[in-house]
């Protein structure tokens, strides 16, 4: 079966693919941010206050992409 036939056989709402893409990136991003923060605190526990702040900023920026990605449902389906 060639690629054109496979694509033609796919049915359903293509927006679900969009949600998947909107979820994968931020999930990887938050995983990296939190994992690196754990590594850093394990190396230097006295810096945990500043590292918590930096972790917060990292999570905020990463989740902003996910929120915008999911909210595009409003304009792409109407």
């Amino acid at each position, binding site marked *: 079966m060639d690629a054109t036939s496979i694509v033609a056989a796919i049915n359903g709402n293509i927006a679900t693919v969009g949600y998947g893409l909107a979820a994968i990136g931020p999930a990887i991003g*938050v995983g990296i941010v939190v994992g690196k923060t754990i590594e850093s605190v394990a190396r230097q526990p006295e810096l945990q206050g500043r590292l*918590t702040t930096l972790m917060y900023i990292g999570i905020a920026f990463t989740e902003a992409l996910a929120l*915008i990605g999911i909210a595009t449902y409003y*304009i792409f*389906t*109407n």
Partner: protein
Amino acid sequence: MNSATIVLKRSLIYGALLALAIAVVGGVIGGLVAGGNGVLSALVGTAMAAVFLGITSGSILLATRSRRYEAFSPAFFAIVLGGWVLKFVMFLALVFLTGRAPWVQPHVLFFCILAAVVGSLLVDVIVVARTRQPYIDEPRSAVTPERSDS
């Protein structure tokens, strides 16, 4: 007390003030563009973005301030990351519930969410950049050493 607490508190307060401003401006623009439905959509969109972004700092604040948990214990990450997953499930459910509601003006709602998200990021960056925070936290000891008077 963790030194990140003051940053998170300020971020929550200024984020709420910004959301209020966006709700007012978005409500006026939504009202001019689409009448009552536009106002309602602007208020709902701003509230969704503000609450869901506030949950991030709120959950870290809760996990950090809780005296029962050492910072960066498994309980800390259970609260922060559990809140993150819960927030996204709720956001997804809300989007699907309100997506085809007759009172929703999708463009007004989307642009209010966008403005609140971008504005919240700006507020976070400004708060983090301007707040004085010590480099080193005083380590929290599990057992307070007894002072000897002799």
